[in-house]
C-alpha cells in the first residue's frame, strides 16, 4: 500500500506570539518550530501502522523552505521511508494543496493522510482541497482508520458523536485525536533517517486567493474578580445580572 502523509511545521504551542511590519507579518524571531502534532502523532503513526499491517511504503511530503528539513528528518526517524520537500514557503492552504496535489497526481497513492489542522492557522482546508484537485473522496477529522480489502473504514467526528464510514480507496483523510498513539523516534531511527531519501521538488508558480492583511491581539482581560468561597450565591447573581449568561 502506497501512503502519502502531509506534514507541516508550526510554532511550538508555548510560543509568545508577536507581529512586525505594522502588524502585517508574524514575527518568527525566537520562535521554535515543531512538527504539527496532528500530522506527527496521528497521521504519520497511522500510516506506519497500516504499513506494518499491509506492507508498502510511507512517504512524507512538506511544502516549505530548507530550514524545515530537521522536521522532515524527524518524520523519517519516526519511521517514514522517504520524503519530498516542495521548495517554497506557502502563504495559504490553497498554495500548499496545489503543490501537494501536483506532486501526488502522478504517483498513484492509495491513501493520502493529513492532520485535521495546523495548530497555528487552524484552517483545516489542505486535505479537502487536495481531494478536490485529485477528484478523490475526502473524510475530515477521522478519529479511527483501518484498511480492509481495498476499503477505508473510518470514524468521522461529528457533533456529539461519530459516523462509521466505508470508502473505496484511493481516498484523502484528515486525522484527529484518537487515530493513533504518539511514537517517539529511537536512536536507530534517528541514525537511519540521515540516509533516507529526501527529494526536493521545485514549486509550481502560484497566486493565492487569500492573503492576511493584518493581525491584532485580543483585548486584555479586565482582570479576575475573586469571589469568596462561602458566597456562591454572589457568583450566581453576577453571572445572571452582570454577565447575563445564566
Amino acid at each position, binding site marked *: 500500500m502506497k501512503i502519502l502523509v502531509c506534514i507541516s511545521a508550526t*510554532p511550538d*504551542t*508555548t510560543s509568545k*506570539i508577536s507581529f512586525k511590519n505594522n502588524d502585517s507579518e508574524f514575527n518568527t524571531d525566537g520562535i521554535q518550530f515543531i512538527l504539527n502534532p*496532528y500530522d506527527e502523532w496521528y497521521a504519520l503513526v497511522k500510516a506506519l501502522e497500516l504499513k506494518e499491517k499491509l506492507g508498502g511504503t510511507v512517504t512524507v511530503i512538506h511544502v516549505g523552505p530548507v530550514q524545515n528539513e530537521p522536521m522532515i528528518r524527524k518524520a523519517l526517524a519516526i519511521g517514514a521511508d522517504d520524503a519530498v520537500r516542495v521548495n517554497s514557503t506557502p502563504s*495559504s*492552504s*490553497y498554495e500548499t494543496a496545489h503543490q501537494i496535489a501536483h506532486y501526488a497526481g502522478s504517483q498513484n497513492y492509495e491513501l493520502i493522510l493529513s492532520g*485535521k489542522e495546523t495548530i*497555528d*492557522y*487552524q*484552517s*483545516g*482546508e489542505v*486535505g*479537502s*482541497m487536495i*481531494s*478536490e484537485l485529485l*477528484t478523490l*473522496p*475526502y473524510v*475530515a*477529522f477521522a478519529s479511527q482508520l483501518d484498511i480492509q480489502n481495498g476499503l477505508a473504514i473510518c470514524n*468521522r*467526528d*461529528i*457533533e*456529539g*458523536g461519530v*459516523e*462509521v*464510514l*466505508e*470508502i473505496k480507496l484511493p481516498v484523502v483523510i484528515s486525522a484527529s*485525536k484518537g487515530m493513533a498513539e504518539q511514537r517517539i523516534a529511537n536512536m536507530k531511527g534517528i541514525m537511519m533517517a540521515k540516509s533516507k531519501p529526501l527529494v526536493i521538488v521545485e514549486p509550481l508558480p502560484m497566486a*493565492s*486567493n*487569500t492573503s*492576511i*492583511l493584518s493581525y*491584532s*491581539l*485580543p483585548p486584555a*482581560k479586565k482582570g*479576575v*474578580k*475573586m*469571589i469568596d*468561597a462561602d458566597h*456562591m*450565591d454572589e*457568583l*450566581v447573581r*453576577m*453571572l445572571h445580572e452582570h*454577565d447575563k*449568561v*445564566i
Partner: protein
Amino acid sequence: MKNILVAIESFNGEFKKSGLQAVSYGKEVALSTGASCIVIVNGETSKAGSLGIYGADRVLQFNKPISPADTQALTNQLAELASINSVGMIVMPYNSTARGITGRLSIKMKSGCVTGVQKLPTNIESESVVVSRSVFAGKATAAIKVSGPCIVLSLSPNASQLKTSGNEVAVETIEVKGGETVKVVESKIVTGRTPLPEAELVVSGGRGMKDPSNWGIIEDLAEALGATTACSRPVADSHWRPHYEHVGQTGIAIKPNLYIAIGISGAIQHLAGVNNSKVIVVINKDPEAPFFKAADYGVCGDLFEIVPRLTEAVKKFKHSNT
C-alpha cells in the same frame, strides 16, 4: 457582489441556531450589496419556508438528503446551484459538514476560502471581501482578504446576530443527482446533552478532581445549569472521562457563553481551546494557578466543598426564577 448562497442542514426536522445565524449573515451581506440571500436546505424538514423569517429571500431544498460524509456529492450539488444562481459567496456554519467541503468547494469555484469567520465582511468588492478569524489558538485575530468569483466562508458561532424581520417563503425543490461514493455504516451519537461545540454553558473538570468516581459533583452542577460537561487532556488520556469531552488545543475548541473550570491548572494548551469563552469561572485551590489570569471570576479553595455549594446556589436561583 453577486447573490449569497447559504448552505444549512436540518437535524431531526429542526434548524440549529448556527444555521439560522448563517441565514441572517447571508442576508446582511446581501442587503449591503443589493443582492439576494438564497438558502439551500439539506435534510428532511417541513420548516424550510420559515427561514424567510431569518432573512432568506429564496429557499431551496434537496428532494432527498445528501450525506455530508459524501463530500464530493455535496460539493458538486452546491457548486451547480452556485453557478446557476449567479452566486458570489457561499456561507455555512463551521461544523463537521463545513470541515469536509469548504476547501473542496473553493477549489471547484476557483475562489478563496476562509474557515471560522468571526464577523460580517468589510471592504466588499465585486470579487473580494475582508473577513476576520482567530489564529494561533485564539492568541490573535487575522484580517484576511479573500477573493474570487465565488468566495467560500464558514462561520464561527455568533458571527452575526439572529434577525427575524422577514416572512415565510415558498420552498423550491432541487432534484439530487448522482450516486453515492461513501457508505455510512453507522451513526453513533454518544451524548444526550447538547454537543460540546454547540454548548452555551460548559462545566469542565481537570486532574484536581483526583478520581473519576468524584465526577458526580460535576454532573450535578452541569445538570442544575443545563450545561454540557468537558475535561482537560490528562483526564481524557487516563480514561477518567470519554475522549469527546477533551477540550483544548488537541481536543475540541469551544466558545460557550460560560466556561466553569474546576481543578484545571490552565496550561496554555488547555486555554487554547477555551479562551474564546465569553465568561470564564475558575475554581482552584492554588492561588497561583495560571488559569486565574485568564478568568473573569475566580474562587480559591477546595473544589470538593465549593462545587456542591455552587450547585445549591444555582438550584436556589433557578427555583426563585421560575
